[in-house]
């Protein structure tokens, strides 16, 4: 009597099982010598290698659908679906045969489009995945919600107008699969093909799902291996996001750093190792923080890869969770299935898998922006005595710049002067505030002007004679620093300009600035562990 298995677990545990396998090409049952299929979360397109006797049957044509089914009574599953792009024939002392190397159906997703594909944002990565699959006509695809490691914060892209116009663009030169793979991997997800369609799934951190199979030494494992190393052990991650001009004109470079890097004795004597990721898709600091946390979870502990071989497990897919226990290898617990390779030949049907899990811990975010107070007290530029100003008399001679020295740090990604001000580039003409563009700032370094720009327009409101001793009448003023400024000493020159529309006596623009801060982005540093002695 033939045993029928109710579950895959009962099948691979069974002492005796009867193999059934079928290769259908173009829907026709086709004799094959052997077959090997491979799917992996890190190889988005699955592959199948079939060996057939020559001459090839007439139905083995380019584009013919190859479907491989295998298993045992009650547990026969499809282990591969793809279309034939290539046929390789040969004969030698082992006979005449053809080898078919067949990519899985999801390979079509890697074709490029004739135009940029643009999604309006904010849009979840899952919706982008679904949209690109639908556009490519993929028959079957499925994505989980893409969330932060907390499991609830949905990842959206195209969030920032200034960075990307609140859109997500897939350039026409980029294959959809490459785009999705790169985007998903940032957040600990993988995009890969399975016999049942293209899948996007979290493969990151500790697996928290119920295991699909339980693999146990001395019971159902034909072989197993365990590899661990610290080659890629990184406990200090920095993540860089989009670079763009902010709404206030300042240059923004998004960056995420940890607040503090814990000491890791495996990285002695420094106790830390650094790496970074960057992507223009990351258009908020929150996204950068999420990516950094994913990297910390997945790469801040030694890489541990478990491999095992069992009798064929045709229902097992990459991204599944398997529990592996081996006392010999000192392995125990759930593993993400990274790759699944099925082999059917005269030695039977076996499945070889690799598994892994991320064991690190996400670190709190650190402050990436270093703010340096350059001047606190108000300064008056212009040519008039104005009693309602905080500083009634001009602080420097008329027409002279007010110089603010500062030091540019060794490492930075963006510099911005932020201050409070009022009245710049605004005159009272005919009883009304009139805009101007005469007052400006300049950046000087090593005796040369290395950058300049206009100050923003802040209404003069001279007729109101506001009391500028009160902070409420001051406005924020942002001066993005552009140009080739280098680390070292520099000066900010604030210059009151002269407007020809005004009488000579009052031609210079009167305004005040105070609380001048230099914001250096990209200069934040986490607190690093104290190195220990010895190597």
């Amino acid at each position, binding site marked *: 009597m033939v045993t029928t298995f109710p579950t895959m677990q009962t099948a691979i545990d*069974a*002492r*005796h*099982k*009867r*193999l059934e396998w079928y290769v259908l090409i173009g829907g026709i049952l086709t004799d094959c010598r052997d077959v090997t299929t491979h799917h992996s979360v890190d190889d988005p397109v699955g592959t199948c290698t079939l060996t057939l006797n020559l001459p090839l049957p007439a139905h083995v044509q380019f584009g013919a659908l190859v479907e491989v089914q295998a298993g045992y009574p009650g547990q026969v599953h499809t282990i591969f679906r793809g279309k034939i792009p290539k046929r390789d024939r040969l004969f030698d002392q082992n006979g005449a045969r053809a080898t078919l190397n067949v990519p899985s159906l999801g390979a079509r997703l890697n074709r490029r489009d004739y135009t940029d594909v643009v999604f309006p944002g904010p849009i979840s990565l899952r919706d982008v995945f679904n949209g690109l699959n639908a556009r490519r006509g993929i028959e079957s695809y499925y994505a989980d919600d893409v969330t932060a490691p907390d499991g609830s914060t949905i990842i959206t892209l195209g969030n920032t107008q200034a960075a990307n116009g609140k859109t997500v663009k897939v350039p026409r030169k980029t294959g959809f699969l490459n785009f999705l793979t790169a985007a998903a991997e940032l957040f600990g997800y993988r995009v890969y093909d399975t016999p049942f369609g293209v899948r996007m799934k979290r493969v990151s951190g500790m697996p928290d799902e119920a295991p699909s199979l339980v693999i146990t*030494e*001395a*019971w*159902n*494992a*034909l*072989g197993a291996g365990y590899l661990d190393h610290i080659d890629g052990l990184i406990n200090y991650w920095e993540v860089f996001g989009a670079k763009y001009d902010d709404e206030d004109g300042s240059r923004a470079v998004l960056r995420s750093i940890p607040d503090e890097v814990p000491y890791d004795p495996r990285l002695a004597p420094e106790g830390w190792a650094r790496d970074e990721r960057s992507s223009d898709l990351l258009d908020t600091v929150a996204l950068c923080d999420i990516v950094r946390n994913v990297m910390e979870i997945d790469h801040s502990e030694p890489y541990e890869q478990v491999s095992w071989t069992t*009798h*064929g497990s045709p229902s097992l897919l990459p991204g599944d969770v398997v529990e592996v226990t081996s*006392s*010999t290898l000192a392995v125990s617990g759930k593993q993400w299935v990274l790759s699944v390779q099925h082999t059917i030949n*005269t*030695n*039977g*049907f076996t499945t070889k898998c690799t598994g892994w899990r991320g064991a690190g811990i996400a670190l709190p975010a650190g402050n990436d922006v270093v703010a340096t107070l350059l001047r606190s007290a108000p300064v008056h530029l212009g040519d008039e005595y104005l009693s309602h100003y905080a500083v009634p008399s001009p602080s420097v001679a008329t027409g002279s710049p007010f110089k603010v020295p500062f030091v540019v740090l060794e490492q930075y990604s963006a510099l911005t002067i932020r201050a409070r001000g009022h009245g710049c580039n605004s005159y009272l003409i005919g009883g009304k505030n009139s805009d101007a563009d005469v007052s400006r700032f300049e950046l000087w370094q090593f005796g040369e002007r290395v950058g300049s720009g206009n100050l923003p327009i802040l209404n003069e409101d001279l007729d109101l004679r506001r009391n500028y001793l009160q902070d409420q009448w001051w406005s924020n003023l942002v001066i993005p620093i552009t140009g080739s400024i280098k680390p070292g000493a520099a000066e900010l020159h604030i210059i009151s300009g002269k407007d020809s529309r005004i009488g000579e006596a009052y031609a210079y623009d009167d305004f005040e600035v105070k609380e001048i801060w230099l914001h250096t982005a990209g200069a934040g540093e986490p607190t690093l562990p104290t190195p220990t002695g010895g190597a």
Partner: protein
Amino acid sequence: MMPRVSDNPIFAYGPLLGFYADGEQARFIFWRKEAAPPDWQGGRDLVANRVYGGRRTLYQDIGADPLRLKTGAWFQSKADFQRFKRLSASVGQLWMNADYTAHRDLSRSPAEQVIHRLGMHYAIFDNVVVTAITDETLDNDGGVRCKVQFEREDFTW
């Protein structure tokens, strides 16, 4: 010189016995030394995997071995033997005395597995391959004897 043809009366027995291919019959008598006639032999192709660290061995039944019939064949003449050698290059049909085999070709309909002709029940097997012809000997009366191995797929699986 006329080719010699054995006049052994045994060749009057079972005129339809033999191997059929390409529309021809290579006639022979099933010949044996032992009292019991040999029959088709089969078996399962089992892959055994010993499990490390335990006493378990896992078996995977990857299919049935082909059924094999190792028998002696006795030809009335060299011409019959040479015809058999020629036809053995093709996949053919084997006609046996139904009383001397426990097997039936399950790929054939029940009514066609055994037929009655000229006073004998013949068991017919399709898709038979001749995989070996050995130990050829020439009888003094012109007959030829040899050992033959036939194979066919096991449809009982």
